[in-house]
């Protein structure tokens, strides 16, 4: 049964010759109509049944196959007069210019030919460089007089999109496509290489069409509307036009009509053929449908984002996939994904029945299609498919034998690919293990949110089920979540704790936090650590556990590590392990001796030290286990301790508010002083700035200082007792600036980096006097969120906010395009076995990847080897 796949080695491009067109045609189309009144295709019309079938039930008159099997057959139209192919018009012009009008030879003498041929030989295979040589040669030829027959030089003028004129002296003569074709025919084959035409597959005269291929009806199917009215494809419409004009042109020529009429019709034919190829050709009006809609012709079908290439060829639709809303589940592993039952019943994996799994498969088949894990189809040894239904399931199970294939439903432990758009990096698609669950959403561990950039406000994600053993093992080995904890972008964890995990870790491990043994036992049980990492006996002697003791249960037994925690105050003189704020973490041989665990230990995307070391030194299995258990433990603990935030978290006592008011008042006065100095003309100009800029800068600096001072004044009252502060300082959520904005003062609102000044003449709002430059009138918000904003302040604030929104919208578009270009340029590069980086033409980009051959995701902080760490490890081992 195994088929050796056909491999396409290369694809040759070329121009179709008229003979080729006739040869591949099954029919010369001569009737401009499609269907007759009874709805039957007209013989020799555009919908002739020999061109393929689009109606189910009918048979193709050429190959006898049914709809869906017959891919259709080409027909052709004999053009009454030749027309220029628009796509080649520019090339035709270049060729016409560089060949002799009489003898047809390229206007270069032997020496010159020799020269360019040598150059062609020497240039690389790259099209671009050959093109340059050819262009150079042709330009040279265009400027010379024919060295072979010496006929006088005439200029060929090209008028877009498809008209050629010959100009000499004061005269001007239009070249008809017949003339053009004649000249191109005269070019000797030996000259083809120098005009850039491959003699094996193309001839220049074929760029002028005498026969037009008619694509099969399968390419341009007509659709039947509800009212049983047939609606034809745009291409068919265009072909009807072409045939009709072609017919009229022929009749007129045969009837010996005046030259003028023939020329007009000829021009019209040219127009229709042109728009048939490309309906957005500049210089001519686009062909329209009767309704006024612009027709989508061949070029439009291929190009652009919705075109054939980008939409259908580079992007493909797939089976065995699912999409639904995601929601969090902190109790599943980071490696897992919760798949709803109804999805699991729909997705299947083909599994071969062998002697070893026969019984298992029978059991699965007996479950039927509606009970997971069941099966939906079986494929018998002879290749026949059989659907399993609730009524047939037992019979099918009996019939099952070695050599059959069972299309079994998704079950626990299967490897699937999970993806969230926009897929900006490779971590946007990772492999998970399935956990079939009730309800309707995909379930996701919270630690995996950062790489997907997922949240749960309605995000949907996609799931794909690999169908072959090879694909599954590949996904499991290299795409598994645990293998991607370290980002290839900067070599540090992108998967890790966030939000409550961080603040929870702080609450658990800070000095003085203690838990009674019963609670601890409960927590360990809840998080599945009891008897896994710790024995029940451990609770016998001890009455009270410190949070640090709890945490060290999760650490590898031989880990020694020191680092500063996130809340580190960056004192001038660091006391290291004697830090009085407990912000210096010391782990020795798996014991957490000092320091509080917070963002710096295991927060995703933040150079977290502990997680980084565990993953890199102990491997990804250990890393996954650490994350799984630490998060579960913390959830249990934080539920006991409790963490919340409310408006009272940013309450400031009366004296503090007075102090803040005072600071702001002072700033306002200073601003006014500056303005007065400016008005009096006493303000000193800063070099390279106008006087007004100087004033603005000074005011901005003054107000920024005021905001900082007000913030600092408020911060004095914002101690670690307040939960919002805990969140900010540990790196769980928000920062101190956010808090001071809530407690003290929002500060200056800006648009494009300037104070707000537009809206009305000389003022931002009609509440102020024209020309008022004071802080209040230019968008300084002195209220806090806690206090509430005045109407004008609120308006200013939304102005600043609006800019942010516009910025984001513009930025996504710009960075998206940049990324598309980057990917397109770099995608073919790969590391070879000699560690050089080469592209697909085997050009060497780098002799050694990154100059040291190191994979960033395996580096430590960008460096190949973390020598300090190795020394540290060696030395600590010694002190045992």
């Amino acid at each position, binding site marked *: 049964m195994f088929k050796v796949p056909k491999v396409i080695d290369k694809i040759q491009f070329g121009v179709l010759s008229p003979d080729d067109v006739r040869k591949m045609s099954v029919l010369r189309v001569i009737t401009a109509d499609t269907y007759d009144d009874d709805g039957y295709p007209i013989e020799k019309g555009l919908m002739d049944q020999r061109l393929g079938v689009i109606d189910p039930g009918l048979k193709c008159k050429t190959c006898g196959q049914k709809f869906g099997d017959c891919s259709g057959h080409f027909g052709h139209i004999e053009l009454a007069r030749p027309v220029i192919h628009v*796509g080649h018009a520019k090339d035709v012009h270049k060729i016409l210019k560089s060949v002799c009008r009489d003898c047809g030879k390229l206007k270069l003498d032997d020496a010159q030919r020799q020269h360019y041929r040598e150059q062609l030989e020497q240039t690389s295979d790259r099209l671009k460089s050959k093109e340059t040589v050819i262009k150079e040669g042709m330009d040279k030829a265009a400027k010379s007089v024919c060295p072979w027959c010496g006929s006088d030089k005439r200029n060929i003028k090209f008028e877009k999109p498809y008209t050629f004129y010959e100009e000499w002296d004061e005269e001007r003569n239009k070249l008809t496509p017949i003339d053009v074709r004649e000249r191109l025919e005269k070019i000797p084959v030996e000259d083809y290489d120098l005009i850039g035409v491959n003699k094996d597959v193309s001839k220049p005269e074929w760029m002028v069409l005498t026969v037009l291929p008619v694509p099969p009806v399968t390419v341009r199917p007509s659709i039947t509307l509800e009212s049983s009215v047939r609606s034809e494809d745009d291409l068919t419409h265009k072909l009807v036009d072409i045939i009709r004009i072609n017919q009229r042109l022929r009749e007129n020529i045969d009837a010996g009509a005046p030259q003028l009429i023939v020329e007009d019709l000829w021009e019209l034919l040219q127009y229709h053929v042109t728009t048939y190829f490309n309906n957005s050709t500049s210089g001519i009006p686009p062909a329209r449908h009767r309704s006024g809609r612009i027709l989508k012709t061949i070029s439009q079908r291929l190009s652009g984002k919705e075109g054939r290439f980008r939409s259908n060829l580079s992007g493909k639709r797939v089976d065995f996939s699912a999409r639904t809303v995601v929601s969090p589940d902190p109790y599943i592993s980071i490696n897992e994904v919760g798949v709803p039952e109804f999805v699991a019943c729909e997705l299947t994996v083909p599994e071969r029945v062998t002697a070893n799994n026969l019984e298992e498969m029978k059991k699965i088949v007996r479950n039927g299609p509606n009970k997971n894990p069941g099966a939906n189809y079986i494929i018998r040894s002879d290749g026949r498919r059989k659907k399993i239904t609730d009524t047939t399931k037992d019979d099918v199970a009996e019939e099952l034998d070695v050599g059959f294939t069972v299309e079994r439903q998704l079950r626990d432990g299967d490897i699937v690919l999970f993806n969230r758009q926009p897929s900006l990096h490779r971590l946007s698609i990772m492999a998970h293990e399935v956990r079939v669950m009730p309800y309707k959403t995909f379930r996701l561990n919270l630690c995996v949110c950062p790489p997907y950039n997922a949240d749960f406000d309605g995000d949907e994600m996609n799931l794909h089920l690999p169908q072959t053993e090879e694909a599954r093992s590949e996904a499991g080995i290299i795409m598994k979540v645990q293998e991607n904890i370290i980002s290839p972008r900067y070599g540090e964890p992108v998967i890790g704790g966030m939000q409550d995990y961080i603040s929870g870790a702080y609450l658990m491990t800070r000095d003085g936090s203690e838990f009674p043994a019963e609670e601890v036992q409960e927590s360990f049980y809840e998080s599945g650590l009891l008897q896994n990492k710790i024995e029940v006996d451990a609770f016998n002697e001890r009455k009270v556990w410190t949070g640090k003791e709890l945490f060290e249960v999760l650490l590898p037994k031989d880990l020694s590590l020191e680092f500063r925690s996130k809340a580190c105050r960056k004192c001038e003189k660091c006391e290291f392990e004697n830090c009085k704020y407990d912000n210096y973490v010391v782990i020795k041989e798996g014991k957490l001796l000092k320091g509080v665990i917070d963002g710096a230990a295991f927060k995703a995307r933040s150079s977290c030290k502990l997680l980084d070391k565990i993953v890199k030194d102990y491997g990804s299995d250990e890393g996954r286990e650490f994350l799984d258990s630490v998060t579960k433990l913390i959830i249990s603990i934080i539920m006991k301790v409790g963490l919340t935030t409310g408006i009272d978290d940013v309450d400031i006592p009366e004296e503090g508010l007075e102090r803040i008011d005072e600071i702001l008042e002072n700033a306002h006065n200073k601003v006014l002083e500056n303005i007065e100095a400016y008005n009096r003309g006493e303000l000193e100009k*800063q070099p390279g*700035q106008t006087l007004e800029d100087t004033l603005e800068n000074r005011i901005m600096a003054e107000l920024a200082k005021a905001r900082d001072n007000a913030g600092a004044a408020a911060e004095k009252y914002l101690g670690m007792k307040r939960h919002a502060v805990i969140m900010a300082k540990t790196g769980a959520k928000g920062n101190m600036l956010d808090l001071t904005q809530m407690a003290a003062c929002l500060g200056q609102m800006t648009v494009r980096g300037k104070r707000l000044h537009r809206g009305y003449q000389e003022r931002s709002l009609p509440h102020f006097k024209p020309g008022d430059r004071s802080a209040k009138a230019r968008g300084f918000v002195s209220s806090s969120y806690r206090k509430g904003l005045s109407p004008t302040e609120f308006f200013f604030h939304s102005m600043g906010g609006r800019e942010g929104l516009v910025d984001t919208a513009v930025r996504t578009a710009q960075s998206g395009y*940049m990324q598309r*270009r980057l990917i397109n*340029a770099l995608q073919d590069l*790969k590391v070879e076995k000699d560690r050089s980086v080469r592209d697909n033409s085997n050009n060497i980009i780098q002799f050694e990847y990154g100059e040291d051959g190191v994979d*960033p995701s395996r580096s430590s902080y960008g460096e190949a080897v973390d020598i300090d760490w190795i*020394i540290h490890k*060696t030395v600590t081992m010694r002190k045992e």
Partner: protein
Amino acid sequence: MVDTSFIDAQLENQRENLTQFIVDKLKDKLYMANEKYSLSEDEVSSIIEDSTKAYEHSLVDPGEAVGTVAAQSLGEPGTQMTLNTFHYAGVADINVTLGLPRIIEIVDARKDPDTPVMRIYLNEESRGSREKAEEIVKEIEGTTIESISKSMKIDVINMSIVVELDNYKMEKQGLTIGDIKEKLYKLKKVESIEDEDNFLTLKAGDVSLMEIRKFFNRVRSHQLKGIKSVKRALIKKEGEEYVIYTEGSNLGEAFKIPGVDLTRSISNDIHEIQRVLGIEAARRSIVDEIKKTLEEQGLEVDIRHIMLLADLMTMEGEIKQIGRHGISGEKSSILARASFEVTTNHLMKAAKFGEIDPLSGVTENVIIGQPIPLGTGNVKLIMKK
């Protein structure tokens, strides 16, 4: 405590397995650790052995799609960058393009960057003194007649241009009326220049009103002194030395000025660097500029990704754009080019040239539905009979 010669000897053994950079660093660190912890011979050997293992472990796998990873690593943070084009780069007030627009500008290899800036260091004699720096600034800073005049206008009745000079500014730039007149005479069409007090009157002979307007614009922007295209120069003290920052860039001319340190002065215009200092310098400057921009935004991207991009852009000896007119437009595969941009043009051209698509890249193989020749798709297995 082991003897340093032991460390050296041990390192020498591993030289083949490590890079020079790591060997040097290992040596330094081992010397230091030896002082601090007085290592034993076994420990030294084990540290070196562990380092070698760690290095071997960190090497890339053959077939790795490093290009795609690099592109993603540079593209993904794009969504997090600011769009704020202008920012003050610390220095008094020279505007530089930052954030996403700057990255796009570099990747596009744009010929005229939005905000060309030079950072000029001074040579050993001059770098310590502000006076020297100011002298050099005078040489550098572009001075037009407009920048040293209080007002300029066209006298329509006499068909002449009247310039009111600013003495203070002239003095600052070290220009005299004589100098200015001499420079202005070099302009075409100038017939006579009269000076009275601080007024210069330029006559341009018999011209129409249209012409005198054009002439006025030419006079206004006529370079009297300094480097062309440098609009402004500022001095900043960095540590012990004075550094000149300029708005507008012209490295070639700046290098001709005595007192300028040729080894360190640099521009942010990549094409200019290529012209003046060569392609290797340009490559380096692409790396530095991207790195600087990303760092400024607080984004971490491994330097290897940036180097790969820079190497690709400069591989053929000239700076090539990432995009239709550069790398993507010169790919060997027709299908890859067609699926990027301007689809039909590429197909037409391919037909005429009778091109053959070797189907060796990623896009082509996706299009025809075959495994891509990267990573696991690059590995061929042959069954043993």
